[in-house]
């Protein structure tokens, strides 16, 4: 069994790795590259916890071979924030308490980012259908959808970033 | 004496009585007193019980005081999820 040499770009960085032919992209990210933000919740593409984008297309990294990444551009949760500056979705997830345990959160954020890149002004129903492949067992999705819609509004410039948001919401 | 309510299926161990009287000033004395007076209760006491004292549930706290007029109800051990 010989390993395959793959050259790819992950979160903007040129990356090379060796993998077994049967390794999934998720195996490679987690076990070979130390990018453990993507999670394996099912291994069958039914939970979305391993979501990443490949050439800007949202996919389950558990359903793609590592070898297929050759020459592709991959984005994971680890590349979502710009240094210390969180992506608006990340910030809104914290502010809206859109996570409880947090295991589904990386996958949902990657999927939600992909949604807003494809559709900056989704309806609630569009957001719910886009995210239907991301299971969350803690929240009942309510606060997740609110956070996504709020982030979308902010990214469209409809609502100024309100530093007193948490105070306002507490009243 | 403290009056202790016994749940239905446990009454086989208390000669059919729905309540029994035990001399006890706290939870430990109550549990010891029950085992002493009604040896047939011992298997359940070993499996675990919860004791409701005046409407609040206690599992382990031996020295929780019980007044003579306290309402005391024996329950199977309750656990959460």
């Amino acid at each position: 069994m010989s390993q395959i040499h793959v050259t790819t770009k992950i979160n903007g960085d040129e990356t090379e790795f060796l993998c077994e032919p049967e390794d999934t992209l998720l195996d490679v990210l987690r076990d070979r590259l130390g990018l453990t933000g993507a999670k394996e919740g099912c291994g069958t593409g039914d939970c979305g916890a391993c979501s990443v984008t490949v050439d800007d297309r949202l996919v389950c990294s558990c359903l793609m071979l590592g070898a297929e990444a050759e020459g592709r551009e991959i984005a994971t949760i680890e590349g979502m924030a710009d240094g210390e500056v969180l992506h608006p979705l990340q910030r809104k997830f914290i502010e809206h308490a859109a996570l409880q345990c947090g295991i589904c959160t990386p996958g949902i954020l990657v999927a939600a980012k992909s949604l807003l890149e494809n559709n900056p002004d989704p309806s609630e129903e569009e957001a719910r259908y886009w995210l239907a492949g991301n299971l969350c067992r803690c929240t009942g999705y309510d606060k997740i959808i609110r956070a996504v819609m709020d982030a979308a509004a902010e990214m469209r410039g409809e609502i100024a970033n309100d530093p007193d948001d948490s105070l306002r919401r507490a009243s | 004496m403290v009056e202790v309510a016994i749940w239905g299926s446990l009454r086989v161990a208390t000669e059919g009585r729905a309540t029994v009287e035990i001399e006890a000033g706290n939870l430990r004395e109550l549990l010891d007193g029950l085992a002493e007076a009604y040896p047939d209760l011992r298997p359940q006491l070993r499996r675990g019980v919860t004791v409701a004292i005046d409407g609040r549930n206690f599992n382990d706290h031996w020295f929780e005081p019980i007044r003579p007029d306290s309402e005391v109800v024996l329950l199977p051990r309750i656990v959460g999820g």
Partner: protein
Amino acid sequence: MALDKQAETAKRQFKVVGTRPNRPDGIDKVTGRARFGADAVAPGMLTGRVLRSPHAHARIVKIDASRAAALSGVKAVVTRADFPEPPAHVADVLDNCMAGAKALYDGHAVAAVAAVSPAVARRALKLIEVEYEVLAHVTDVDEAMQPGAPVLHEGRTDETVPEGFSGNVISRCEFGHGDIEAGLAKADRVVERSFRTAATHQGYIEPHACLAQMGPDGQADLWCCTQGHYMVRNTCAAILGMEVGQLRVTASEIGGGFGGKTTVFLEPVALMLSKKAGRPVKMVMSREEVLRASGPTASTSIDVRIGMTKDGRITAGDAVLRYQGGAYPGSPVGMGSMSAFAPYDLENVRTVGFDVVSNRPKQAAYRAPGAPMAAFAVESVIDELAKSLGLDPLDVRIRNAAVEGTKSSYGPTYPAIGAKATFEAAKAHPHWSAPLGENQGRGVACGFWFNFGGDTCVTLNVNLDGTVSVSEGNPDIGGSRASMSMMAAEELGIPYEQVRTIIADTGSLGQNEVTDGSRVTFAVGLATIEAARQAIRVMCARAAKIWGIDEDAVVWEDGAAKPAGPNAGQFPPMSLAEIAAVASNTGGPIAGHCEVNAEGAGVSFATHIVDTEVDPETGAVKILRYTVIQDAGKAVHPDYVEGQFQGGAVQGIGWALNEEYIYGEDGRLQNPGFLDYRVPVASDLPMIDTVILEIPNPGHPYGVRGVGETSIVPPLAAVANAVSAAAGVRLTDLPMSPPKVQAAIQAARG
């Protein structure tokens, strides 16, 4: 601990408690940095894998692992023969982790390997030869109870079970008071119905995972995702014959539990593999393993009889509950029986419960264990009675509501409770009177849960710069670190941002009960408050020393020590930071700690309203609107209280509509994956509206009640009542999957 002494006025003005600050672990969790169970690594780590029984019930005649052990890269093979004879209290737990004489369910672990890679481990499993003698099996609760059913264990039936049942009936319990038949005789209408609920799984997205390392000196470290690392330590130590102090367990971040991570599955096996291999061993379950071989909840069969007068007074309530809890004793039927009629003030009430074993995985707790199924049956019959008598279902519930002083259906007399308040709030909610369209129906139901306390330790350290570090021993499963920081900040009078709470390992604090029973905000919160008060006493003493006045003459207000009144002398207040800065000069570091068995938690109630639309041609059910009304005692962080309400409601919706364990004729699980074990997805649901009521728990200084579990109790019945209203026919069999709903409609309409 006498909690009453701490009870304070509900009128207290809070500064931090009740606000919605960001959680301290938020950034870790939105950036992918948070480390969950499967994210652990150790140098030289091996991969552990489990071989599982393909049979529902089989005697294990022989296991030959020699070929696996000889495979290059295999470093250890473990079977039951490697474990010492366990103490009685963990015997079933060990047998569930690694089968002994018999495999008792499809997926039961029979052997395990540790190897240098997952691929080698997989190959090794295939080389283990197990000779089975396949036995007849039973997975249905009613069939398991019949005389003549295949019996899993001989001699486990206890003294409470009457003659005439199979050996699978382990125990019987009975609760209640009054005279059922006399009560029913006074009723204008009696409804009697039978109900069934399928087993469901907690469905946490993170599979079980652990990393174990055990040295030849007997010292061991374990990293795992669990609801209680102290439980893991105590259980594993007992199973492996270790001293508790030699095993240190660190809880990783936990990706959901809902009760399912309150026991051990992989951990003792990983430790044994590591012991034999002399290297760290990591084990992670696949989703299939989680569903086949962790701890789903019980499936049930329940009969209910309730009598009601024309004006809506319940004259008697009677229920027989049968719960199969998998292959070992311990189904939550006792709690189901106690909770079934708990929201009501009844003169005549009786519940009889049977704990039954069958060839399924050993059940684990699932959010308010036992209660949702019982509430489904009872609340369905109350709904049917109310409607058949032309009464408003909420009026009926208000009419019969348990209140302070009511003798509960399970025995104790209630202190101040919120049952009636949730009914009245539901009645007043605009949702209750909103119009409905064609094929739509509205349902309402109530739920009850006990809530727990238990052993709890908290240490609070005041740092030299005036910040505060809180260490607690309960894994944070939904924002509890934020709540603890808030309660510490509230008590100390400092900003929330100056407090950081961490989850300590088992070597750092004393015993902590698991994160279960909705106990954390209540019990850990109580201990946090007490630890803060202890630190305040120390800080007041230091200020008194500095000022040269009596300790009793110093009070703590707004985060500072102050002289208590003019007679104590004129000194400017000393803030926490000022006292902390000179701690070394005034006696040493300042800390407070609390070790307590925090018993006396307050019960809680919830009422849910739901609108559904049923497609009469296909039986498809759509949830249109959902409102949760629940008593929280005091909502420390309202976002996370709402989150518990919403999450519980949606798990209940899944249980009501589509989630079920499906067993084939062969006794094997047919749907061990998220494809066919159908948990609700985002597009299945509307927003879940919440109403938080605050009826303070007298047993907690801030009035906190547990909120995590009650929210899953009403939805099964609420959705069933709504679907029944929309379909025009009573649904009594969960889940109400489309084929069942369509068949019921077709049967009713002819």
